[in-house]
């Protein structure tokens, strides 16, 4: 039978496939996971005061991060581009009464630009303030987060570390893939009582836990992206893969 006599099944008309940025996708994934654990999302400005970005978080004027080389200052040093999303936690603690369980997700800025560091990157940080929160609770939450992100087969370890706003502080490594290497995945700790007091929360009644992770780093591990700079070249061949 010829083309003129019968109905021909036309080839499918394929639509162009768009894509969300891989950082957006990872943010969505982590945000939804944290919401499922009872954390509400909080927002804050990317241009911050030194008070909220440093002082209230117990990052003293003698801390190396406050030097001009690590922080972008704007408008005659009157403000900073936030160096982390932690000021959102400060704002939330000042606005809310405990118990508090919030997370903030967004862009942060550091004066850095090389193969492993960018002047702008994304963080997700969470904080929980309640009575009787212990290091054991912190570990339990971190295990839950890591297992949700990387599967319950993943091995993780906690290492003591240092952040001015948490005490005790820890960094968490996971044993990653075929390389069999421990890779740092997030930082966490019990909220430093000084920070609670700075936010008018009685540290003798309340304690808290906090954690923070770099979205680019998680995304790189999740998708095997070798170079962090690839996220911000806006190369369609790269972005359309996600």
């Amino acid at each position, binding site marked *: 039978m010829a083309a003129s006599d019968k109905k021909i099944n036309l080839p499918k008309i394929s639509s162009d496939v768009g894509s969300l940025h891989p950082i957006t996708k990872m943010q969505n994934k982590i945000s939804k996971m944290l919401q499922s654990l009872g954390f509400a999302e909080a927002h804050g400005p990317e241009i911050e005061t030194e008070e909220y970005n440093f002082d209230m978080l117990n990052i003293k004027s003698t801390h190396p991060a406050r030097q001009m080389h690590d922080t972008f200052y704007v408008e005659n040093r009157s403000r900073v581009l936030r160096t982390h999303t932690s000021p959102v936690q400060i704002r939330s603690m000042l606005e809310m009464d405990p118990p508090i369980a919030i997370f903030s997700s967004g862009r942060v800025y550091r004066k850095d630009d090389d193969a492993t560091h960018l002047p702008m990157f994304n963080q997700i940080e969470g904080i929980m303030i309640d009575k009787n929160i212990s290091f054991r609770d912190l570990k339990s939450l971190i295990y*839950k987060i890591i297992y949700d992100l990387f599967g319950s087969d993943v091995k993780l370890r906690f290492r003591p570390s240092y952040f001015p706003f948490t005490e005790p502080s820890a960094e968490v490594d996971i044993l990653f893939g075929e390389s069999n290497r421990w890779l740092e995945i997030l930082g966490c700790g019990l909220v430093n009582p000084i920070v609670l007091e700075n936010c008018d929360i009685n540290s003798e009644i309340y304690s808290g836990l906090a954690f923070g992770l770099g979205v680019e780093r998680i995304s790189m591990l999740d998708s095997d992206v070798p170079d962090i700079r690839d996220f911000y070249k806006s190369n369609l061949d790269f972005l359309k893969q996600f």
Partner: protein
Amino acid sequence: MKIYFPDLLKFFDDKPSITEVSDKLFQLGHEHVIDKNLLDIEITPNRGDCLSVNGIARDLGVFFKLSKPKEIYEGDIDKLNLEFENKEKDLCPSISFLKVEIHDEIMPYQKYLDDFFEKLDHSKKNFFTDVSNYLLYELGQPTHCYDYEKINGSIVLEKKECSEEFVSVLNKNIKLNGDNLVFSNQNNIINLAGIMGGASTCCSNNTRTVLIECAYFKSEEILGKSRKYNINSDSAFNFERGVDPCNQDYVLRRFLSIIKDHAMIKTAAIYQEKNYKKHDEISVNYKIIEKIIYGEDSKETLIKDNLDQILRKLSLKRVADIDDFTTTYKIPSFRSDIVHENDIAEEVARVIGYDNIPYHKITTKKPICSKDNFEENLKNFLKNKGFVECINFPFVRDSIEESIQIDNPLDSNEAYLRTCLKDSLIQNLEYNERRQKDSIKIFEISNLYSIKNQELHETRRIAIIASGRLAKNYRDFSKIIRKDFLETIFSELNPAFDFKVDEVSRENVKSKLKHPIFLIEMSLRELSDYISFKNFNEPIENESVKYSPVSNFPSISRDLSFLIENDDVLDDLINSLSSFDHKDLKEKFIFDFFINKKDSQIKIGYRFIFQSLYKTLEDKEIDVLIGDIVKTALELESVSIPGFKNE
């Protein structure tokens, strides 16, 4: 810091293996790598006390038996009558000077000193400076050696406004500016306190009378200075992180002991200023420590005696029991980081091992439902329309009156925060058009900042750009995106609203393509006034996407136009072409499809795009691949390629 492992072993009676030491270093929070016998340890900024072999050994002392302290000079030392004026006792509350005169002969270096230079790849300078550098490694305390014969009259320590040029011991000219804490002699700066000494008074191989300065400077005074003057200074690094303010006597006696190992001492005399409170005290309630680590309802408990044992191994000295739960301890002078009970809890947790603290199945609170998912829905909507989300850095060259200026930009050509998204997206378009992309549909949603009447303004904006071919299918391939494409993009959400679409001039766009560029840019709030996403739920994609490397080499397109006389083979042809695969075949799609009813023929046009990850492909390589495709296609009955010739 780098430590030669045998040097560390000398501090222990038991001789642990490097693996055992490595495990315990991790447990204590000292991240490191091992290269043969070298440990390269990253010390957190709060642990300046660990920036030495002695400091690391002391921290490991909770696990391994420490041997007796290193040999020091135990004899009496004369008092030095030094003309020294400390005008900055707040910034330098304790300082010592040791003057030592030796006989001419300096013996070959002992093995421990020689190893320091050989194994750690340090270069030797002169005897006294070499000992000073070694002691910084062994004890973490910086010392500075002046050639005593080059000092005339009194030495003054003061913070003063400087504008002169200073020549460092490394013969580097440094133009000083602003306030600096300096040592001066006869009004000449001879030492940038805590950072680096000067060439005018430094020791040489001929020095036989040395004045050794050993001080404690407040970290805030030193912080940032070595960066400011681009000086690489280990001393400044240690002072920035805090050194022991009460260790000078021990350090100088150790210095003297090392001199004695290598030379005959004629005279030694010491000058000391001590204005520092030696020890702080802390009350430790073990029930509170237990609560911080395990929580109130845990089966795990801390035993008071065990806690005491841990704290004493960490050099805290028991002062008195306050009650059944609380004991007061003296904090050692080198642990300025211990301030409150959470710090003690961290110390105890480190010794127990973070990984040995149990965890439990977490009881989650009531899940939170996101109330405001307009932005998420908007992004998903655009994705479904074929748009790709971009994210750009906010730093730009050009400014308007409301622009926010960055005081210390990374690049002086990008000293402002952008006030619109358009320019970023145009750059994204240029970037991709230069990479042979002829259909661009992209968007960005970001916060923008501006300042007006000294008030900061934040707006969350969206920009969408579309240009080039409408789509890569046979219906739309030959159509170019027009203004109405963007005007109607949200019509299914609000048919009544006309979106303002701008055509962007290509005058300043660096691209060979000439397709018109269309843009929508507006605030998200404004957009949400016009559209909403009732019942729109995009499924969450949780599966991981594994990245495939992106080529930086040009691609080559080849079009084949197949003629089919028998439409029964249409599906076979499409299946055959769709299943063709090769590492350099990046993309293929049908760009033309035509049924000629009169001649009972079907014409189908296929575009194949080739690109290698590793090189620019040559035509002859593509010819081979096209030959394979054609051969497979022509095996089907009644399929031909009019006019095709493949040599």
